[in-house]
């Protein structure tokens, strides 16, 4: 998407890294700097300048800026589409962007005012040192239900992985599979693998069953046989079962 050659043009604006608090700030800067009529933004030009700017600023990895870049390109394309003959029903694709820009510009102005306020207030020092009081009770707590709810969400978000994982996928259950296999052999002497696995086995069912079979074969409870390559596995009850 970086179709704009880096440094190919003389930028009409001087930009500094971290000088912008977001994509809207950068966009407004481009518009105001060039005294562009906000009601009639030349989207194609501005979109190119925006892309160039985020490239130069090294902002092209910031999702917020890329999202705005994509939006500008979308508007650019919409403006290229043929319009209906009567322009009655035509909606300027820039309208929503202009609304957001104006709204943001207002917030930006309030923020500038707050910067001034904070700076003035920073020159008024509160009392800096309080002598130790004889006995100091614990400070009263300020606690709200809302804070508690926020905390609940944070707990859920931060829950350690193992807790989340243990609920969903079943771990290998060799013991359960062993019990199941022993039960199948209670009434019969030969069983095939599919009967052991049952309907719709999961990966962990299959692995658990195979491990159980191997374990049972090892202790001599059953024999495993495959009469031809790729043939089905025949599982026989061992005649002399030491564990029986």
């Amino acid at each position, binding site marked *: 998407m970086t179709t704009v050659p880096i440094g190919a043009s003389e930028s009409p604006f001087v930009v500094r890294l971290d000088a912008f608090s977001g994509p809207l700030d950068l966009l407004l800067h481009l518009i105001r700097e060039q005294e562009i009529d906000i009601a009639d933004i030349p989207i194609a030009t501005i979109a190119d300048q925006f892309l160039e700017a985020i490239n130069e600023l090294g902002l092209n990895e910031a999702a917020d800026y890329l999202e705005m870049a994509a939006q500008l390109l979308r508007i650019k394309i919409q403006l290229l589409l043929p319009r209906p003959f009567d322009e009655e029903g035509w909606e300027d694709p820039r309208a929503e962007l*202009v609304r957001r820009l104006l709204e943001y510009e207002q917030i930006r102005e309030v923020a500038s005012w707050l910067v001034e306020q904070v700076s003035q207030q920073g020159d*008024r020092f509160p009392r800096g040192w309080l002598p130790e009081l004889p006995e100091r009770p614990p400070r009263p707590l300020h606690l709200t239900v809302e804070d508690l709810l926020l905390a609940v969400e944070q707990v859920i978000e931060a829950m350690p992985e193992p807790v989340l994982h243990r609920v969903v996928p079943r771990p290998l259950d060799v013991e359960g599979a062993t019990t199941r296999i022993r039960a199948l052999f209670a009434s019969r002497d030969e069983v095939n693998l599919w009967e052991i696995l049952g309907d719709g086995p999961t990966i962990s069912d299959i692995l658990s069953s195979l491990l159980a079979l191997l374990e049972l074969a090892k202790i001599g409870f059953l024999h495993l046989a495959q009469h031809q390559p790729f043939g089905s596995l025949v599982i026989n009850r061992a005649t002399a079962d030491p564990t029986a």
Partner: protein
Amino acid sequence: MQPLTRLLEAALFAAAHPLTLADLARLAPEASRAELVQAVNELREHYEQGEHGIELLSLADGFQVVTRPRFAEAIAEAQLVQRPRKPSRAALETLAVIAYRQPVSRAEIEEIRGVNVEGMLRSLHERGIIEVVGRAEGLGRPLLYGTTSLFLELVGLGSQDELPRLEELEVALRPPTEQGEFGEP
């Protein structure tokens, strides 16, 4: 100074943070509201007329004694005070949105500022500058944020009403309602 004013001064010194009228009423339960207000004014005027190095400020829905700005540099120069870190511009933009739109959800703030503010909200909340004031109706019932009295303290306002009225701003919001307003591309 009358006795109530003296008590008030002692309390404002001891607390080192803004005290509301409710706080002062707890301090002097027998005094009427009018008497408390009068005592506050007496103290304020005393600091004015006596040309003190300190002043009484209406701050964050309360009152606080602070040093006069003109002494800030000398005091900071002598390294007697560690100046607090100023909030970033991005933080103040976020606070501006919250101050004017509260109660406001994270999604609304992000729509207006055009950036992700998750980490910012968390940090402002942890510092007590904003608080969760409720939950919106609708999908996911998102948390709604508002500013606290600490915000007023930070930006040196007596109350929420002292924020500039949006109509007074240079950039008055002109909602682009009429589509005809926009020229041709």
